[in-house]
């Protein structure tokens, strides 16, 4: 694979993340409850995008099955919410499907901390198994991408088919409370929003931490020349499995944060279409840049809901054209394009040897 991505100069993008976080923190003051709630959903997507950026932007592995990990995280949380909503009664879809009692694997999800933990652990475990097998067998590039597509189809068909355990196509919905706070109340929603922002921040620092370690350098080395990394004495399999698991855990976390805010999870969210869309957020924001992933996830979704509200009948045109244009003309995404623009401006300025005051502004 060709080297595409933003070479991350550690410590240079501090300003950007501070601005993003500041904007996210003050956003609810200016937005209606509905918009805040929507933004909270996009923040959950941004957590997921960080995970995809780690594996794709930094390691060069394109997973088209991240919807599965997102979905499993979301289902874990949804199972807890559903059990709490039904207060000891059997969830409605189980009784339609003719079940008399709660299946054993639903039982642990009555306890909230277990559900939250499982939302992280289960995706990681599945990623560990899949990742270990495929990376050990040196399946890479396009083959890996298509294999993950097959994985996502398998999960969707299974979840749809096992209606009595998963709610089928409908998914799991109709929640009432989270940790005994009413989901309908405005203050719970605001809390959920800020909790997602905090999780986003934590996820960001976690990713930053990984990238700035030697692990991160090895990951980039694998992206740019796997065999060279191998010949230098690193075992790419271990690193790839590691980053794949981290990325799956982040997706699971995103799912757990997503569900209480959106109020539904269905198998369709695990499918190929959402999985590709997730990758596209990162592509548009700028792969190989954590800021880019966050910006991409939030911006693309803002655009999507904005455009689809304005032009409900033909909005797919705009989205399709945007994808094509960004992938072709901005291979390193918005962040990359912005950096390019900045350095171009800088070089023009330097060539002109403008007055020092202007240079100072640029430095900031």
């Amino acid at each position, binding site marked *: 694979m*060709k080297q595409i991505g933003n070479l991350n100069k550690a410590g240079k993008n501090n300003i950007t993340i501070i601005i993003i976080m500041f904007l996210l923190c003050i956003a609810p003051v200016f937005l209606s409850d509905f918009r805040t709630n929507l933004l909270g959903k996009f923040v959950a997507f941004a957590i997921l995008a960080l995970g995809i950026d780690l594996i794709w932007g930094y390691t060069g592995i394109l997973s088209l099955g991240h919807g599965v990990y997102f979905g499993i995280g979301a289902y874990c949380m949804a199972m807890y919410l559903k059990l709490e909503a039904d207060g000891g009664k059997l969830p409605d879809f189980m009784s339609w499907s003719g079940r008399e009692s709660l299946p054993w694997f639903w039982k642990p999800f009555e306890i909230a901390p277990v559900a939250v933990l499982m939302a992280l652990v289960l995706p990681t475990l599945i990623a560990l198994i899949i990742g270990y097998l495929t990376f050990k067998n040196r399946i890479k590039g396009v083959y890996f*991408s298509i*294999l993950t597509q*097959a994985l996502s189809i398998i999960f969707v068909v*299974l979840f*749809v088919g096992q209606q009595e355990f998963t709610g089928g196509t409908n998914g799991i919905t109709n929640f009432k409370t989270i940790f005994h706070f009413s989901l309908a109340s405005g203050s719970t929603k605001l809390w959920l929003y800020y909790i997602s922002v905090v999780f986003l921040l934590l996820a960001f620092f976690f990713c930053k931490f990984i990238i700035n370690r030697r692990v991160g350098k090895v990951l980039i080395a694998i992206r740019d020349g796997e065999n060279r990394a191998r010949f230098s004495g690193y075992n790419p399999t271990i690193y790839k499995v590691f980053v794949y698991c981290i990325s799956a855990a982040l997706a699971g976390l995103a799912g757990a944060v997503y569900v209480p805010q959106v109020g539904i999870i269905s198998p369709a969210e695990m499918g190929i279409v959402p999985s590709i869309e997730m*990758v596209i957020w990162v592509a548009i924001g700028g792969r190989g840049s954590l800021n880019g992933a966050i910006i991409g996830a939030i911006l693309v979704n803002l655009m999507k809901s904005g455009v689809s509200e304005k032009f409900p009948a033909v909005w797919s045109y705009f989205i*399709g054209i945007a994808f094509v244009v960004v992938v072709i003309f901005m291979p390193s995404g918005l962040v990359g394009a912005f950096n390019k623009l900045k350095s171009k401006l800088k070089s023009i300025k330097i060539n002109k040897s403008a007055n020092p005051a202007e240079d100072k502004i640029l430095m900031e």
Partner: protein
Amino acid sequence: MSTYLLQIFNGVSVSSILMLAALGLAITFGLMKIINMAHGELIMIGAYVTYVIQNIFIQYFDKSIFSLYYIIALPGAFVVAALVGYLLEISIIKRLYGRPLDSLLATWGVSLILQQLARSIFGAPNVDVKSPAWLEGGLVLGGTQLPYKRLFIIGLVIACIAGVYIFLYRTAYGRKIRAVMQNRSMAQSLGINTRKVDSITFAMGAGLAGIAGGALTLLGSIGPTLGTNYIVDTFMVVVLGGVGRIVGTVTGSAAIGIGNTTFEFFTNASLGKVLVFLMVIIFLQWKPQGFFTINSRALDE
């Protein structure tokens, strides 16, 4: 007994349909390393071309020759889809060579646009293509009936594969294509216009998708999202079979098609699908390059 015989026939038939749908992909993906997510939409274009040609016959020609529309529709589907493929290549795909994963994302955008375009032109509901009278009914064989439509598709696939094979391996232009795909810079320095070869190859792959679309009108629905039903299965066929070899595509589609129908027969359709994909994943662990590979000493593909 006849049930089992018919089931074997069904396996062959489903394989042939997959083969037809995947043949174009085997060229664009197998030879050119372009992951064309809009392949399904090229199939859809082929189906809509068939629909349009049928309507032209209903409108302007006598009823007695209506059944002949299909003979015109298949080449028509090829030409139109190839044209769309050509335009796609010179506008978008040419900027994506060497970036297979990026080609996936960009063509995904293209597929969204094409779907919406179909919806704008033909309306959102499905449309109906009447099968030609000479394909109604079937061959009665020992108590079971083998539908002519399915026999026709099997024949069509054989013809298409033969055509592609002859074109690639027995013509001067085919030799050029193979040369470019194997070693681009060497071909270039020998004076082959690689840009032109790229466009023609991609157009050919697109055209084959168009033929598949024309054939699928005999069996399934014709609507804007027709292509989405086939896209993953066809990729699976190409990957399972091995990239870059037509014999791989044939084997891959036979494995998936017969696997699908057999599992579906003994279990149910959902479980059949899960089992087949699971086996593909397991098989790829064992042979990551699929059934057939082109041997290469290059370390980094």
